[in-house]
């Protein structure tokens, strides 16, 4: 077994986490799961005893030739990504970090991916397996450390984005990939409409585009791949050179657009919304000025809006095109009670059933996704 050198912080705290869960189960005490506690702004606030995974740290398995890494949930994301970078590899979905303390568990629980997502895939696309402490405080293994595995239901991918409401992630195994051989970034000063047209055309060609975001009158593009194709495409697309630092700033919501500090510090008169939209969405039917003031990331599939627009107006505009809107603003803002788009009744019924089956005592992050469970 290949593995990177252990760090002094490496520690297996699964037994004490399990004990806490058994106690909570016995007494019916709700738990608020945290890792680095940097993603609290994403979702509904949860009342409960804090259960921290921060002590449960370390990479337990890494074999670059297998393209597989297993890591405890409390491991800082930065530590994992540094270990992968040492071997010339990466998490292809480019996860955001909302602080140095951001952990692998939080990354998986929130399921957020970065600028490369439309081309490379999302967090769940790269999850191969997970260890989960269920409501009885027993560690269970789903998926595995191999690329293809269809034994049983895919519960490890189900955990991605479930915000810790179905169990406590203790370890996750990922497929990793080599870092691209070459990377170049550029920006083109073109209108939003022109950007949409060009992206639609380019999308049908095998171009090495790995990020595309339109904001403030310019389309920002990143090219990644073999040196030959990146150089040739850079030549073809023209435009001006763009500093590579733009992408992590966009990924981590650190551009000026997002304002200073985290959600709680964001002025509540202009809260932040994330819109998830089909690629081909031409327009949401909002005012032109409103659409021009958004960030259109993921070639238009993920838009960031700062606006006092009411939740229902925004959500029905998204619903019309089969998209959805998530509120990331401060508590008390227009979407803070229901940050995620409400589910249709049948879907909600099965969410509640699933929650009741996997967490019958309702101890794991109750109400974090929706008030109903």
């Amino acid at each position, binding site marked *: 077994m290949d593995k990177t050198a252990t760090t002094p912080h490496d520690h297996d705290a699964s037994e004490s986490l399990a004990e806490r869960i058994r106690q909570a189960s016995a007494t019916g005490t709700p738990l608020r799961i945290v890792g680095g506690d940097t993603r609290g702004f994403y979702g509904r606030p949860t009342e409960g005893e804090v259960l921290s995974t921060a002590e449960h740290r370390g990479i337990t398995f890494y074999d670059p030739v297998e393209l597989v890494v297993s890591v405890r949930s409390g491991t800082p994301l930065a530590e994992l990504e540094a270990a992968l970078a040492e071997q010339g590899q990466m998490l292809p979905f480019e996860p955001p970090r909302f602080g140095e303390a951001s952990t692998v568990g939080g990354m998986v629980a929130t399921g957020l991916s970065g600028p490369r997502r439309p081309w490379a895939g999302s967090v769940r696309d790269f999850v191969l397996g997970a260890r989960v402490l269920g409501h009885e405080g027993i560690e269970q293994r789903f998926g595995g450390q191999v690329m293809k595995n269809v034994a049983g239901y895919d519960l490890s991918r189900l955990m991605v984005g479930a915000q810790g409401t179905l169990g406590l992630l203790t370890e996750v195994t990922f497929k990793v990939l080599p870092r691209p051989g070459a990377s170049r970034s550029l920006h083109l000063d073109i209108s939003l409409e022109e950007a949409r047209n060009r992206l639609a055309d380019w999308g049908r060609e095998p171009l090495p585009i790995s990020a595309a975001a339109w904001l403030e009158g310019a389309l920002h593009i990143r090219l990644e791949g073999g040196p030959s194709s990146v150089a040739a495409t850079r030549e073809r697309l023209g435009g001006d050179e763009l500093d590579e630092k733009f992408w992590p700033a966009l990924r981590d919501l650190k551009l000026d657009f997002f304002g200073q500090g985290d959600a709680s510090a964001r002025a509540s008169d202009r809260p932040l919304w994330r819109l*998830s939209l089909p690629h081909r969405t031409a327009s949401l039917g909002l005012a032109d000025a409103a659409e021009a003031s958004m960030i259109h990331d993921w070639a238009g599939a993920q838009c960031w809006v700062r606006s006092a627009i009411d939740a229902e107006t925004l959500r029905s505009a998204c619903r019309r095109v089969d998209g959805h809107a998530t509120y990331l603003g401060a508590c008390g803002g227009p979407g803070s009670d229901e940050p995620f788009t409400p589910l249709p009744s049948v879907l909600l019924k099965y969410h509640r059933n699933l929650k009741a089956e996997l967490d019958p005592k309702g101890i794991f992050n109750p109400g974090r996704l929706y008030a109903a469970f």
Partner: protein
Amino acid sequence: MNILYDERLDGAAPKLDKTAIRDSLAQDVPGLTLLHREEDLHPFECDGLSVYRTLPMLVALPETLAQVEQLLKTCHRLGVPVVTRGAGTGLSGGAMPLEHGVLLVLSRFSRILEIDPEARIARVEPGVRNLAISEAASPYGLYYAPDPSSQIACSIGGNVAENAGGVHCLKYGLTVHNVIKVEVLTIEGEHMTLGSDALDAPGFDLLALFNGSEGMLGVVTEITVKLLPKPETAKVLMASFDDIEKAGNAVGSIIAAGIIPGGLEMMDNLAIRAAEDFIGAGYPVEAAAILLCELDGVEADVDDDCETVRRVLEAAGATGIQQARDDAERALFWAGRKNAFPAVGRMSPDYYCMDGTIPRRELARVLKGISDLSEQYGLRVANVFHAGDGNMHPLILFDANTPGELDEAEALGGKILELCVEVGGTITGEHGVGREKINQMCAQFRPDELATFRAAKAAFDPTGLLNPGKNIPTPARCSEFRTIKSAAADPAKQG
């Protein structure tokens, strides 16, 4: 342990009155084609795992969604199990019918509803053949990436049910990575949409849960898949080795060089000879193993990568390296691999295809283990291997007409799967558990893990009417499996 439905181990089957159910369905579901005569039921008695056959009670061939919805409601009300079936090409008995159940055949839902080249998606009915999607997308320069070897016949609904793979998975992913939305009918006949035309959807990732759930959580009635631009070019290198372990190491070295091939396949000598004899692909019949490495993408990058891979293969001790000169030769190289199963089938009256996945580093150990088991059971085994992602397809050669040989082949297959689990792998990479690997699930998972699977099932189908007996074994079955295993391990306990 037999895998056929056994009420003692798999739970009591409902006591059903076939005529009464037929009457209810005929009355509730106008226009439904419902087969009930024995001679009409025979074509549906098995899927691609044809050594196991059960005659279904009734076969329903609906043509409208309203019929499917009403059929589910009626079956739910009457407590009738429903097994959903697409093209019936599955290799694990996932669509094996039940004597006490309705077989819901979705093959008439075979329309491609929409190809949207701008959004690069295709919206299709579940009975559409996998290859038909790529054919329909081809005029736009697009294709659907997952390509199981049965792609000419298998349906996309079945692909979702099994989370089907293919030879290009390492780079392009499985079905779960390429499906963005499904429409589902629950056992109660309710409609829900999982996923969306956007890149994510609110709530739990039920789309991921439904992929590979073997028709046990709901009935998928419409599927939206993403389409990819066809690579500008694809080139194939074929390398021969005098030692299978060297070939295995070469696979690791290619990936260590930072290259993710579009396809990376390995065949052992028996499989090479079978394929060559059948197809005449130009394979080196003396080689202990060959590797087929396909590199695809932008021309300039592919040329660079071909050079790198060639150097890696030479360093890994390849005895010969051949690059397909043109698309025709490339197709020929692949034809040998894609026809390896029927090719092996010509060498023996019957063969049994396994589907374990292992960490690649364990390849040499597992091949040695397979070869020892092959000797022990006196049955030949040919190895075909999705080497890039560690998915093995050992083919066990046997003759079902020789008394006891099928049982021996199954026992050998079971041992191979347990060996895969032992080295950290899994009993099924892409074919699914179905009925075939129901016993080995007891080796792969602990009782509490299996209980969690049952809990997930209960959330969607509390009365267990959708495809009962597949995928997740009962505690009774696992307890018997463990008793037999421990008896085998301890001869003193044997009677």
